[in-house]
Protein backbone atom coordinates (compact mmCIF):
# COMPACT_ATOMS: atom_id res chain seq x y z
CA UNK A 1 0.00 0.00 0.00
CA UNK A 2 1.61 3.19 -1.17
CA UNK A 3 -0.88 5.66 0.12
CA UNK A 4 -1.91 5.60 3.78
CA UNK A 5 -4.23 8.24 5.19
CA UNK A 6 -3.51 9.52 8.68
CA UNK A 7 -6.64 8.17 10.28
CA UNK A 8 -6.03 4.62 9.03
CA UNK A 9 -2.47 4.37 10.35
CA UNK A 10 -3.43 2.32 13.45
CA UNK A 11 -5.02 -0.27 11.15
CA UNK A 12 -2.01 -0.40 8.89
CA UNK A 13 0.40 -0.71 11.81
CA UNK A 14 -1.54 -3.59 13.30
CA UNK A 15 -1.74 -5.32 9.94
CA UNK A 16 2.00 -5.04 9.54
CA UNK A 17 2.53 -6.50 12.98
CA UNK A 18 0.31 -9.47 12.18
CA UNK A 19 2.19 -10.07 8.95
CA UNK A 20 5.44 -9.98 10.87
CA UNK A 21 4.28 -12.55 13.39
CA UNK A 22 3.03 -14.77 10.59
CA UNK A 23 6.42 -14.62 8.97
CA UNK A 24 8.13 -15.55 12.22
CA UNK A 25 5.79 -18.52 12.67
CA UNK A 26 6.47 -19.64 9.15
CA UNK A 27 10.22 -19.21 9.22
CA UNK A 28 11.03 -20.57 12.68
CA UNK A 29 10.06 -23.17 15.23
CA UNK A 30 8.17 -20.64 17.33
CA UNK A 31 4.39 -21.01 17.14
CA UNK A 32 2.63 -17.65 17.51
CA UNK A 33 -0.78 -18.78 16.25
CA UNK A 34 -2.58 -17.75 19.43
CA UNK A 35 -1.04 -14.28 19.43
CA UNK A 36 -1.90 -13.89 15.77
CA UNK A 37 -5.56 -14.76 16.22
CA UNK A 38 -5.82 -12.37 19.17
CA UNK A 39 -4.36 -9.60 17.09
CA UNK A 40 -6.56 -10.46 14.13
CA UNK A 41 -9.60 -10.12 16.32
CA UNK A 42 -8.34 -6.82 17.58
CA UNK A 43 -7.78 -5.73 13.98
CA UNK A 44 -11.36 -6.50 13.11
CA UNK A 45 -12.61 -4.36 15.97
CA UNK A 46 -10.23 -1.56 15.06
CA UNK A 47 -11.28 -1.65 11.41
CA UNK A 48 -14.95 -1.58 12.35
CA UNK A 49 -14.24 1.36 14.58
CA UNK A 50 -12.23 3.37 12.06
CA UNK A 51 -13.84 2.48 8.73
CA UNK A 52 -17.32 2.02 10.13
CA UNK A 53 -17.66 5.62 11.32
CA UNK A 54 -15.74 7.77 8.89
CA UNK A 55 -16.04 11.49 9.59
CA UNK A 56 -16.90 13.81 6.68
CA UNK A 57 -13.32 15.04 6.39
CA UNK A 58 -12.05 11.46 6.30
CA UNK A 59 -14.46 10.71 3.48
CA UNK A 60 -13.14 13.76 1.62
CA UNK A 61 -9.67 12.24 1.88
CA UNK A 62 -11.01 8.90 0.65
CA UNK A 63 -12.73 10.60 -2.29
CA UNK A 64 -9.42 12.28 -3.17
CA UNK A 65 -7.24 9.24 -2.59
CA UNK A 66 -4.50 9.01 -5.19
CA UNK A 67 -5.31 5.38 -5.91
CA UNK A 68 -9.07 5.79 -6.00
CA UNK A 69 -10.49 4.10 -9.10
CA UNK A 70 -11.55 6.33 -11.98
CA UNK A 71 -14.19 6.17 -14.69
CA UNK A 72 -11.98 4.06 -16.95
CA UNK A 73 -11.37 1.51 -14.16
CA UNK A 74 -15.10 0.94 -13.90
CA UNK A 75 -15.69 0.95 -17.65
CA UNK A 76 -13.16 -1.85 -17.96
CA UNK A 77 -14.92 -3.94 -15.31
CA UNK A 78 -18.61 -3.24 -15.97
CA UNK A 79 -18.89 -3.09 -19.75
CA UNK A 80 -17.77 -4.98 -22.81
CA UNK A 81 -16.68 -3.80 -26.26
CA UNK A 82 -16.17 -0.21 -25.08
CA UNK A 83 -15.18 2.22 -27.84
CA UNK A 84 -14.20 5.74 -26.89
CA UNK A 85 -15.15 8.60 -29.21
CA UNK A 86 -13.59 12.04 -29.27
CA UNK A 87 -14.29 15.67 -29.94
CA UNK A 88 -17.08 18.21 -29.71
CA UNK A 89 -17.00 19.06 -33.47
CA UNK A 90 -16.69 22.73 -32.50
CA UNK A 91 -13.31 23.31 -30.97
CA UNK A 92 -11.45 20.24 -29.78
CA UNK A 93 -11.30 17.13 -27.66
CA UNK A 94 -11.21 17.35 -23.89
CA UNK A 95 -9.39 14.46 -22.24
CA UNK A 96 -10.92 15.42 -18.87
CA UNK A 97 -14.08 13.68 -20.04
CA UNK A 98 -14.17 10.21 -21.61
CA UNK A 99 -17.16 9.19 -23.60
CA UNK A 100 -18.15 6.24 -25.71
CA UNK A 101 -20.43 3.27 -26.18
CA UNK A 102 -20.31 -0.33 -24.97
CA UNK A 103 -22.46 -3.26 -23.99
CA UNK A 104 -23.86 -3.49 -20.50
CA UNK A 105 -25.26 -6.96 -19.95
CA UNK A 106 -25.63 -7.37 -23.73
CA UNK A 107 -27.45 -4.07 -24.21
CA UNK A 108 -25.81 -1.04 -25.85
CA UNK A 109 -25.30 1.97 -23.57
CA UNK A 110 -23.57 5.34 -23.75
CA UNK A 111 -21.02 5.96 -21.01
CA UNK A 112 -19.71 9.41 -20.11
CA UNK A 113 -17.47 10.30 -17.21
CA UNK A 114 -14.96 12.74 -15.83
CA UNK A 115 -11.47 11.27 -16.06
CA UNK A 116 -8.61 12.07 -13.72
CA UNK A 117 -5.10 10.80 -14.17
CA UNK A 118 -3.35 8.50 -11.74
CA UNK A 119 0.07 10.07 -12.09
CA UNK A 120 1.32 13.56 -12.78
CA UNK A 121 1.84 13.02 -16.47
CA UNK A 122 -1.63 11.66 -17.05
CA UNK A 123 -3.14 14.25 -14.76
CA UNK A 124 -1.61 17.01 -16.84
CA UNK A 125 -2.93 15.43 -20.02
CA UNK A 126 -6.38 15.11 -18.48
CA UNK A 127 -6.24 18.48 -16.73
CA UNK A 128 -6.84 16.76 -13.36
CA UNK A 129 -10.33 15.82 -14.54
CA UNK A 130 -11.42 19.44 -14.75
CA UNK A 131 -13.24 19.98 -18.05
CA UNK A 132 -13.29 22.86 -20.48
CA UNK A 133 -16.48 23.72 -22.40
CA UNK A 134 -15.48 21.34 -25.21
CA UNK A 135 -15.65 18.46 -22.72
CA UNK A 136 -19.24 19.25 -21.81
CA UNK A 137 -20.13 19.78 -25.45
CA UNK A 138 -18.61 16.45 -26.39
CA UNK A 139 -20.68 14.86 -23.64
CA UNK A 140 -23.83 16.52 -24.94
CA UNK A 141 -23.12 15.41 -28.48
CA UNK A 142 -22.88 11.84 -27.30
CA UNK A 143 -25.99 12.14 -25.17
CA UNK A 144 -27.98 13.31 -28.18
CA UNK A 145 -26.60 10.37 -30.10
CA UNK A 146 -27.67 8.04 -27.31
CA UNK A 147 -31.15 9.48 -27.60
CA UNK A 148 -31.20 8.96 -31.35
CA UNK A 149 -30.22 5.30 -31.02
CA UNK A 150 -32.29 4.75 -27.92
CA UNK A 151 -29.41 3.83 -25.61
CA UNK A 152 -29.49 4.52 -21.86
CA UNK A 153 -26.85 6.94 -20.62
CA UNK A 154 -24.58 6.21 -17.68
CA UNK A 155 -22.57 9.11 -16.24
CA UNK A 156 -19.67 8.80 -13.83
CA UNK A 157 -19.05 11.96 -11.84
CA UNK A 158 -15.54 12.57 -10.58
CA UNK A 159 -14.26 16.13 -10.74
CA UNK A 160 -13.11 18.94 -8.50
CA UNK A 161 -15.07 21.19 -10.82
CA UNK A 162 -15.12 22.81 -14.22
CA UNK A 163 -11.73 24.28 -15.03
CA UNK A 164 -11.41 27.91 -13.90
CA UNK A 165 -9.31 29.16 -16.82
CA UNK A 166 -9.19 32.05 -19.22
CA UNK A 167 -9.81 30.01 -22.35
CA UNK A 168 -12.63 28.13 -20.64
CA UNK A 169 -14.39 31.42 -19.92
CA UNK A 170 -13.79 32.72 -23.44
CA UNK A 171 -15.36 29.62 -24.93
CA UNK A 172 -18.41 29.81 -22.69
CA UNK A 173 -17.96 27.56 -19.67
CA UNK A 174 -21.22 28.86 -18.22
CA UNK A 175 -23.18 28.24 -21.37
CA UNK A 176 -21.72 24.76 -21.84
CA UNK A 177 -22.75 23.71 -18.34
CA UNK A 178 -26.14 25.39 -18.53
CA UNK A 179 -26.85 23.81 -21.92
CA UNK A 180 -26.13 20.35 -20.55
CA UNK A 181 -28.45 20.86 -17.60
CA UNK A 182 -31.22 21.96 -19.90
CA UNK A 183 -30.71 19.30 -22.55
CA UNK A 184 -30.28 16.44 -20.10
CA UNK A 185 -33.66 17.42 -18.70
CA UNK A 186 -35.31 16.53 -21.99
CA UNK A 187 -33.44 13.41 -23.16
CA UNK A 188 -35.94 10.64 -23.81
CA UNK A 189 -33.63 7.83 -22.71
CA UNK A 190 -32.88 6.76 -19.11
CA UNK A 191 -29.95 8.55 -17.43
CA UNK A 192 -28.19 7.09 -14.41
CA UNK A 193 -25.54 9.22 -12.71
CA UNK A 194 -23.04 7.81 -10.25
CA UNK A 195 -20.70 9.98 -8.18
CA UNK A 196 -17.53 7.92 -7.80
CA UNK A 197 -15.12 10.46 -6.29
CA UNK A 198 -15.47 14.18 -5.88
CA UNK A 199 -18.61 15.81 -7.21
CA UNK A 200 -17.50 19.41 -7.43
CA UNK A 201 -20.10 22.07 -8.16
CA UNK A 202 -21.51 22.95 -11.59
CA UNK A 203 -18.72 21.05 -13.30
CA UNK A 204 -20.06 17.85 -11.75
CA UNK A 205 -23.71 18.71 -12.19
CA UNK A 206 -23.16 19.19 -15.94
CA UNK A 207 -23.04 15.38 -16.16
CA UNK A 208 -25.44 14.97 -13.28
CA UNK A 209 -29.02 15.60 -14.33
CA UNK A 210 -30.52 12.14 -14.44
CA UNK A 211 -33.35 9.83 -13.46
CA UNK A 212 -31.40 8.11 -10.73
CA UNK A 213 -28.44 9.65 -8.90
CA UNK A 214 -26.25 7.36 -6.81
CA UNK A 215 -23.13 7.98 -4.78
CA UNK A 216 -20.33 5.72 -3.68
CA UNK A 217 -20.33 5.71 0.10
CA UNK A 218 -17.13 7.74 0.45
CA UNK A 219 -17.64 10.08 -2.45
CA UNK A 220 -18.63 13.73 -1.94
CA UNK A 221 -20.96 16.08 -3.78
CA UNK A 222 -20.94 19.76 -2.99
CA UNK A 223 -21.54 23.25 -4.23
CA UNK A 224 -17.95 24.22 -3.45
CA UNK A 225 -14.87 22.43 -2.10
CA UNK A 226 -14.48 22.46 1.70
CA UNK A 227 -11.38 24.63 1.28
CA UNK A 228 -13.27 27.05 -0.95
CA UNK A 229 -16.19 27.20 1.45
CA UNK A 230 -13.91 27.86 4.41
CA UNK A 231 -12.12 30.65 2.56
CA UNK A 232 -15.37 32.23 1.45
CA UNK A 233 -17.37 31.89 4.64
CA UNK A 234 -14.73 32.31 7.30
CA UNK A 235 -11.80 33.73 5.31
CA UNK A 236 -9.68 30.81 6.44
CA UNK A 237 -9.01 27.82 4.17
CA UNK A 238 -7.59 25.85 7.10
CA UNK A 239 -11.14 25.45 8.40
CA UNK A 240 -11.83 23.04 5.53
CA UNK A 241 -12.44 20.17 7.93
CA UNK A 242 -15.06 22.21 9.72
CA UNK A 243 -16.60 23.18 6.37
CA UNK A 244 -16.79 19.51 5.36
CA UNK A 245 -18.83 18.86 8.49
CA UNK A 246 -21.08 21.91 8.13
CA UNK A 247 -21.84 21.81 4.40
CA UNK A 248 -23.37 18.33 4.25
CA UNK A 249 -21.30 16.82 1.45
CA UNK A 250 -21.23 13.08 2.18
CA UNK A 251 -23.39 10.41 0.57
CA UNK A 252 -25.30 10.11 3.83
CA UNK A 253 -26.00 13.86 3.89
CA UNK A 254 -27.23 13.86 0.30
CA UNK A 255 -29.46 10.89 0.92
CA UNK A 256 -30.96 12.69 3.90
CA UNK A 257 -31.50 15.83 1.79
CA UNK A 258 -33.36 13.70 -0.82
CA UNK A 259 -30.88 14.59 -3.54
CA UNK A 260 -29.60 11.08 -4.29
CA UNK A 261 -31.32 7.74 -4.65
CA UNK A 262 -28.88 5.19 -3.32
CA UNK A 263 -25.62 4.96 -1.45
CA UNK A 264 -23.38 2.36 -3.06
CA UNK A 265 -21.29 0.64 -0.37
CA UNK A 266 -17.51 0.57 -0.63
CA UNK A 267 -15.13 -2.24 0.32
CA UNK A 268 -13.72 -1.83 3.81
CA UNK A 269 -11.08 0.89 3.66
CA UNK A 270 -12.35 2.43 0.42
CA UNK A 271 -12.94 1.70 -3.25
CA UNK A 272 -9.22 1.49 -4.00
CA UNK A 273 -8.77 -1.52 -1.69
CA UNK A 274 -10.68 -3.78 -4.03
CA UNK A 275 -11.69 -2.30 -7.37
CA UNK A 276 -13.28 -5.54 -8.59
CA UNK A 277 -15.50 -5.73 -5.57
CA UNK A 278 -16.37 -2.04 -5.90
CA UNK A 279 -17.35 -2.61 -9.52
CA UNK A 280 -19.64 -5.42 -8.38
CA UNK A 281 -21.31 -3.13 -5.86
CA UNK A 282 -21.88 -0.57 -8.61
CA UNK A 283 -23.15 -3.28 -10.92
CA UNK A 284 -25.86 -4.30 -8.47
CA UNK A 285 -27.26 -0.79 -8.13
CA UNK A 286 -26.82 0.15 -11.79
CA UNK A 287 -28.59 -2.91 -13.14
CA UNK A 288 -31.48 -2.37 -10.75
CA UNK A 289 -31.75 1.28 -11.85
CA UNK A 290 -31.76 0.47 -15.54
CA UNK A 291 -34.31 -2.27 -15.04
CA UNK A 292 -36.66 0.10 -13.24
CA UNK A 293 -36.18 2.92 -15.74
CA UNK A 294 -36.79 0.60 -18.70
CA UNK A 295 -40.38 0.14 -17.54
CA UNK A 296 -41.23 3.84 -18.08
CA UNK A 297 -42.38 5.22 -21.40
CA UNK A 298 -40.82 8.48 -22.60
CA UNK A 299 -43.47 10.73 -21.16
CA UNK A 300 -43.37 9.03 -17.78
CA UNK A 301 -39.59 9.20 -17.74
CA UNK A 302 -39.52 12.96 -18.32
CA UNK A 303 -42.34 13.62 -15.90
CA UNK A 304 -40.63 11.64 -13.16
CA UNK A 305 -37.32 13.41 -13.87
CA UNK A 306 -39.02 16.77 -13.40
CA UNK A 307 -40.82 15.59 -10.25
CA UNK A 308 -37.51 14.42 -8.84
CA UNK A 309 -35.80 17.79 -9.16
CA UNK A 310 -38.90 19.81 -8.43
CA UNK A 311 -38.95 18.55 -4.85
CA UNK A 312 -35.27 19.34 -4.16
CA UNK A 313 -34.86 22.31 -1.85
CA UNK A 314 -36.10 23.59 1.47
CA UNK A 315 -38.05 26.81 1.90
CA UNK A 316 -40.82 28.23 4.04
CA UNK A 317 -43.92 30.33 3.51
CA UNK A 318 -44.04 33.29 5.84
Amino acid at each position, binding site marked *: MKHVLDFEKPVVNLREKIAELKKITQDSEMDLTDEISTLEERLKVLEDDIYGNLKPWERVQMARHGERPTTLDYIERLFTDFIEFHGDRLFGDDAAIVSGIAFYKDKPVTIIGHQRGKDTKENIRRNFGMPHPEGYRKALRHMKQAEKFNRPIICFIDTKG*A*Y*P*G*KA*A*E*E*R*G*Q*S*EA*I*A*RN*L*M*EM*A*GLTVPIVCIVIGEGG*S*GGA*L*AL*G*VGDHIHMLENST*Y*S*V*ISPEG*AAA*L*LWKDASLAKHAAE*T*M*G*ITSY*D*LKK*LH*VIDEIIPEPRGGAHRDVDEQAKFIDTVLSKSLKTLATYDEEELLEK*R*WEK*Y*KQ*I*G*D*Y*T*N*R
Partner: protein
Amino acid sequence: MLKDIFGKRRRYASIPSEQGKMDVPEGLMQKCKGCNKIFYRKEVKKSLHVCTNCGYHHPLTAWERIDSLFDVDTFVEWDAEISSANPLNFPDYIEKLEKDQKKTGLNEGVVTGKGLIDSHPTAFAVMDSNFRMGSMGSAIGEKIARAVENARKEEIPFIIFSASGGARMQEGVLSLMQMAKTSIAIKRFSDAGGLMISVMTHPTTGGVSASFASIGDYNFAEPGALIGFAGRRIIEQTIREKLPQDFQTAEFQLKHGQLDKVIHRKEMRNTLAQLLKLHEKGGE
Protein backbone atom coordinates in the same frame (compact mmCIF):
# COMPACT_ATOMS: atom_id res chain seq x y z
CA MET B 1 -17.37 52.11 -25.37
CA LEU B 2 -15.77 49.92 -22.76
CA LYS B 3 -12.45 51.63 -23.22
CA ASP B 4 -14.25 54.89 -22.52
CA ILE B 5 -15.60 53.62 -19.25
CA PHE B 6 -12.26 52.49 -17.99
CA GLY B 7 -10.46 55.50 -19.38
CA LYS B 8 -12.77 57.88 -17.62
CA ARG B 9 -12.72 55.87 -14.45
CA ARG B 10 -8.98 56.31 -14.29
CA ARG B 11 -9.16 60.00 -15.03
CA TYR B 12 -11.54 60.73 -12.18
CA ALA B 13 -10.06 58.29 -9.75
CA SER B 14 -7.73 60.93 -8.35
CA ILE B 15 -10.12 61.79 -5.51
CA PRO B 16 -9.19 59.48 -2.62
CA SER B 17 -12.26 57.37 -2.05
CA GLU B 18 -12.48 57.96 1.70
CA GLN B 19 -12.42 61.71 1.28
CA GLY B 20 -14.82 61.42 -1.64
CA LYS B 21 -17.23 59.63 0.60
CA MET B 22 -17.13 62.40 3.18
CA ASP B 23 -17.76 65.03 0.54
CA VAL B 24 -21.07 63.48 -0.42
CA PRO B 25 -23.98 64.64 1.74
CA GLU B 26 -26.01 61.53 2.49
CA GLY B 27 -29.38 61.46 0.85
CA LEU B 28 -29.20 64.44 -1.46
CA MET B 29 -26.15 63.57 -3.53
CA GLN B 30 -24.73 60.37 -4.93
CA LYS B 31 -21.32 59.52 -6.27
CA CYS B 32 -20.92 57.56 -9.51
CA LYS B 33 -19.15 54.26 -8.97
CA GLY B 34 -17.72 54.47 -12.46
CA CYS B 35 -16.23 57.96 -12.59
CA ASN B 36 -16.56 59.23 -9.00
CA LYS B 37 -18.44 62.29 -10.19
CA ILE B 38 -21.08 63.58 -7.81
CA PHE B 39 -24.69 63.92 -8.90
CA TYR B 40 -28.01 64.90 -7.40
CA ARG B 41 -29.81 61.75 -6.39
CA LYS B 42 -32.94 62.99 -8.19
CA GLU B 43 -31.01 63.33 -11.41
CA VAL B 44 -29.55 59.84 -11.09
CA LYS B 45 -32.99 58.39 -10.60
CA LYS B 46 -34.27 60.09 -13.72
CA SER B 47 -31.54 58.49 -15.80
CA LEU B 48 -32.45 55.01 -14.41
CA HIS B 49 -29.28 55.07 -12.30
CA VAL B 50 -27.06 55.24 -15.35
CA CYS B 51 -24.29 57.84 -15.03
CA THR B 52 -24.86 60.65 -17.51
CA ASN B 53 -21.14 61.30 -17.53
CA CYS B 54 -19.54 57.87 -17.99
CA GLY B 55 -22.45 55.51 -18.68
CA TYR B 56 -21.87 53.36 -15.61
CA HIS B 57 -24.95 51.22 -14.91
CA HIS B 58 -25.57 51.22 -11.15
CA PRO B 59 -27.49 48.19 -9.86
CA LEU B 60 -31.24 48.56 -9.63
CA THR B 61 -33.33 47.03 -6.89
CA ALA B 62 -35.87 44.46 -8.00
CA TRP B 63 -38.74 46.93 -7.75
CA GLU B 64 -36.85 49.73 -9.49
CA ARG B 65 -36.32 47.30 -12.36
CA ILE B 66 -39.98 46.37 -12.45
CA ASP B 67 -40.95 50.05 -12.49
CA SER B 68 -38.51 50.69 -15.33
CA LEU B 69 -40.05 48.01 -17.56
CA PHE B 70 -43.72 47.42 -16.81
CA ASP B 71 -46.75 49.47 -17.72
CA VAL B 72 -47.94 51.36 -14.65
CA ASP B 73 -49.88 49.26 -12.13
CA THR B 74 -49.90 46.11 -14.25
CA PHE B 75 -47.36 44.02 -12.34
CA VAL B 76 -48.77 41.32 -10.05
CA GLU B 77 -46.32 39.56 -7.79
CA TRP B 78 -46.23 35.78 -7.37
CA ASP B 79 -45.13 33.73 -4.35
CA ALA B 80 -43.98 36.70 -2.30
CA GLU B 81 -44.33 34.64 0.88
CA ILE B 82 -41.66 32.11 -0.08
CA SER B 83 -38.44 32.54 1.85
CA SER B 84 -35.42 30.51 2.82
CA ALA B 85 -35.34 27.84 5.47
CA ASN B 86 -32.12 26.66 7.06
CA PRO B 87 -31.79 23.09 5.80
CA LEU B 88 -28.24 22.57 7.09
CA ASN B 89 -28.80 24.43 10.37
CA PHE B 90 -26.03 26.72 9.27
CA PRO B 91 -24.89 29.03 12.07
CA ASP B 92 -26.04 32.67 11.71
CA TYR B 93 -27.85 32.00 8.42
CA ILE B 94 -31.31 32.96 9.67
CA GLU B 95 -29.94 36.13 11.26
CA LYS B 96 -28.30 37.09 7.98
CA LEU B 97 -31.52 36.48 6.09
CA GLU B 98 -33.51 38.56 8.53
CA LYS B 99 -31.03 41.39 8.27
CA ASP B 100 -31.31 41.47 4.48
CA GLN B 101 -35.08 41.14 4.65
CA LYS B 102 -35.16 44.26 6.76
CA LYS B 103 -32.66 46.03 4.50
CA THR B 104 -34.42 45.28 1.21
CA GLY B 105 -38.05 44.80 2.18
CA LEU B 106 -37.92 41.52 0.23
CA ASN B 107 -38.46 38.00 1.54
CA GLU B 108 -35.81 36.65 -0.80
CA GLY B 109 -33.39 37.75 -3.52
CA VAL B 110 -35.82 37.40 -6.40
CA VAL B 111 -39.19 38.93 -7.24
CA THR B 112 -41.42 37.03 -9.66
CA GLY B 113 -44.75 37.83 -11.21
CA LYS B 114 -46.43 38.97 -14.37
CA GLY B 115 -47.48 42.19 -15.96
CA LEU B 116 -47.59 44.15 -19.19
CA ILE B 117 -44.54 45.46 -21.00
CA ASP B 118 -45.86 47.94 -23.57
CA SER B 119 -49.15 46.02 -23.39
CA HIS B 120 -47.50 42.61 -23.89
CA PRO B 121 -48.30 40.13 -21.11
CA THR B 122 -45.08 38.71 -19.69
CA ALA B 123 -44.00 36.45 -16.85
CA PHE B 124 -41.05 37.94 -15.09
CA ALA B 125 -38.32 37.27 -12.55
CA VAL B 126 -35.77 39.77 -11.31
CA MET B 127 -32.97 39.11 -8.87
CA ASP B 128 -31.86 41.70 -6.36
CA SER B 129 -28.15 41.71 -5.59
CA ASN B 130 -28.78 43.60 -2.35
CA PHE B 131 -30.20 40.42 -0.85
CA ARG B 132 -27.36 38.04 0.08
CA MET B 133 -25.52 39.22 -3.05
CA GLY B 134 -28.24 37.65 -5.15
CA SER B 135 -26.97 34.20 -4.22
CA MET B 136 -29.27 31.36 -5.25
CA GLY B 137 -30.72 29.09 -2.60
CA SER B 138 -33.79 26.87 -2.48
CA ALA B 139 -36.28 29.74 -2.19
CA ILE B 140 -34.93 31.47 -5.30
CA GLY B 141 -34.85 28.20 -7.23
CA GLU B 142 -38.41 27.44 -6.23
CA LYS B 143 -39.71 30.90 -7.13
CA ILE B 144 -38.03 30.89 -10.52
CA ALA B 145 -39.15 27.35 -11.32
CA ARG B 146 -42.73 28.27 -10.38
CA ALA B 147 -42.63 31.44 -12.48
CA VAL B 148 -41.45 29.44 -15.50
CA GLU B 149 -44.18 26.86 -14.91
CA ASN B 150 -46.78 29.63 -14.69
CA ALA B 151 -45.50 31.08 -17.96
CA ARG B 152 -45.83 27.66 -19.57
CA LYS B 153 -49.38 27.19 -18.33
CA GLU B 154 -50.48 30.69 -19.25
CA GLU B 155 -48.62 30.53 -22.58
CA ILE B 156 -46.89 33.86 -22.09
CA PRO B 157 -43.19 34.75 -22.56
CA PHE B 158 -40.77 34.62 -19.64
CA ILE B 159 -38.16 37.31 -19.03
CA ILE B 160 -35.54 37.03 -16.31
CA PHE B 161 -33.07 39.66 -15.08
CA SER B 162 -30.20 37.99 -13.26
CA ALA B 163 -27.91 39.54 -10.67
CA SER B 164 -26.07 37.01 -8.61
CA GLY B 165 -22.74 36.16 -7.08
CA GLY B 166 -23.56 32.47 -7.53
CA ALA B 167 -24.70 29.77 -5.14
CA ARG B 168 -25.98 30.28 -1.59
CA MET B 169 -23.17 28.63 0.38
CA GLN B 170 -25.27 28.18 3.51
CA GLU B 171 -27.58 25.78 1.69
CA GLY B 172 -24.78 23.58 0.38
CA VAL B 173 -25.66 21.10 -2.32
CA LEU B 174 -29.33 22.13 -2.26
CA SER B 175 -28.29 25.45 -3.77
CA LEU B 176 -26.32 23.62 -6.47
CA MET B 177 -29.40 21.55 -7.30
CA GLN B 178 -31.43 24.70 -7.95
CA MET B 179 -29.39 25.04 -11.15
CA ALA B 180 -30.84 21.74 -12.31
CA LYS B 181 -34.33 22.47 -11.06
CA THR B 182 -34.61 25.82 -12.86
CA SER B 183 -33.02 24.45 -16.03
CA ILE B 184 -35.48 21.57 -16.22
CA ALA B 185 -38.39 23.97 -15.75
CA ILE B 186 -37.02 26.08 -18.61
CA LYS B 187 -36.63 23.02 -20.82
CA ARG B 188 -40.30 22.14 -20.31
CA PHE B 189 -41.28 25.72 -21.08
CA SER B 190 -39.05 25.85 -24.14
CA ASP B 191 -40.36 22.53 -25.49
CA ALA B 192 -43.87 23.94 -25.18
CA GLY B 193 -42.80 26.76 -27.51
CA GLY B 194 -42.30 29.40 -24.83
CA LEU B 195 -40.12 32.45 -25.45
CA MET B 196 -37.48 33.09 -22.82
CA ILE B 197 -35.35 36.23 -22.68
CA SER B 198 -32.42 36.39 -20.29
CA VAL B 199 -30.86 39.69 -19.30
CA MET B 200 -27.66 39.51 -17.28
CA THR B 201 -26.95 42.46 -15.06
CA HIS B 202 -24.02 43.19 -12.80
CA PRO B 203 -22.93 40.68 -11.56
CA THR B 204 -24.10 37.38 -13.08
CA THR B 205 -21.62 34.70 -12.11
CA GLY B 206 -21.20 31.13 -10.89
CA GLY B 207 -24.23 28.90 -10.64
CA VAL B 208 -26.63 31.47 -12.02
CA SER B 209 -24.61 32.17 -15.15
CA ALA B 210 -24.12 28.40 -15.53
CA SER B 211 -27.84 27.71 -15.47
CA PHE B 212 -30.95 29.73 -16.36
CA ALA B 213 -29.15 32.99 -17.22
CA SER B 214 -27.33 31.37 -20.16
CA ILE B 215 -30.17 29.42 -21.76
CA GLY B 216 -32.59 32.06 -22.91
CA ASP B 217 -33.70 32.06 -26.53
CA TYR B 218 -32.00 35.44 -26.38
CA ASN B 219 -29.23 36.27 -23.94
CA PHE B 220 -28.61 39.95 -23.29
CA ALA B 221 -26.60 41.98 -20.82
CA GLU B 222 -26.31 45.51 -19.52
CA PRO B 223 -23.13 47.42 -20.40
CA GLY B 224 -20.18 46.75 -18.13
CA ALA B 225 -21.88 43.90 -16.27
CA LEU B 226 -19.57 41.25 -14.85
CA ILE B 227 -20.54 37.90 -16.38
CA GLY B 228 -18.69 34.62 -15.98
CA PHE B 229 -18.48 31.22 -14.40
CA ALA B 230 -15.34 31.27 -12.25
CA GLY B 231 -14.15 34.26 -10.26
CA ARG B 232 -11.30 36.41 -11.54
CA ARG B 233 -9.11 35.73 -8.51
CA ILE B 234 -9.48 31.96 -8.74
CA ILE B 235 -8.65 32.01 -12.44
CA GLU B 236 -5.59 34.20 -11.86
CA GLN B 237 -4.37 31.86 -9.13
CA THR B 238 -4.97 28.82 -11.33
CA ILE B 239 -3.32 30.02 -14.53
CA ARG B 240 -0.76 32.25 -12.76
CA GLU B 241 -1.33 35.10 -15.12
CA LYS B 242 -2.92 38.52 -14.86
CA LEU B 243 -6.23 38.78 -16.69
CA PRO B 244 -7.07 41.70 -18.99
CA GLN B 245 -9.10 44.47 -17.42
CA ASP B 246 -12.17 43.86 -19.58
CA PHE B 247 -12.18 40.11 -18.76
CA GLN B 248 -15.71 38.79 -18.13
CA THR B 249 -17.44 42.07 -18.88
CA ALA B 250 -20.60 42.08 -20.97
CA GLU B 251 -18.55 43.49 -23.85
CA PHE B 252 -15.99 40.69 -23.50
CA GLN B 253 -18.77 38.10 -23.60
CA LEU B 254 -20.30 39.76 -26.66
CA LYS B 255 -16.95 39.70 -28.42
CA HIS B 256 -16.56 36.00 -27.64
CA GLY B 257 -19.96 35.11 -28.99
CA GLN B 258 -21.61 34.44 -25.65
CA LEU B 259 -24.29 37.15 -25.88
CA ASP B 260 -26.82 38.23 -28.48
CA LYS B 261 -26.60 41.88 -27.60
CA VAL B 262 -25.51 44.37 -24.97
CA ILE B 263 -28.37 46.74 -24.28
CA HIS B 264 -28.17 50.16 -22.63
CA ARG B 265 -30.69 50.53 -19.83
CA LYS B 266 -32.51 53.36 -21.50
CA GLU B 267 -33.11 51.12 -24.54
CA MET B 268 -34.11 48.08 -22.50
CA ARG B 269 -37.86 48.51 -22.32
CA ASN B 270 -38.20 49.32 -26.01
CA THR B 271 -35.97 46.46 -27.09
CA LEU B 272 -37.90 43.96 -24.98
CA ALA B 273 -41.21 45.30 -26.21
CA GLN B 274 -40.02 45.04 -29.80
CA LEU B 275 -38.89 41.47 -29.26
CA LEU B 276 -42.18 40.52 -27.61
CA LYS B 277 -44.00 42.00 -30.56
CA LEU B 278 -41.86 40.05 -33.02
CA HIS B 279 -42.81 36.82 -31.25
CA GLU B 280 -46.50 37.41 -31.00
CA LYS B 281 -48.51 34.77 -32.78
CA GLY B 282 -49.63 36.21 -36.09
CA GLY B 283 -53.06 36.17 -37.73
CA GLU B 284 -55.07 36.22 -34.54
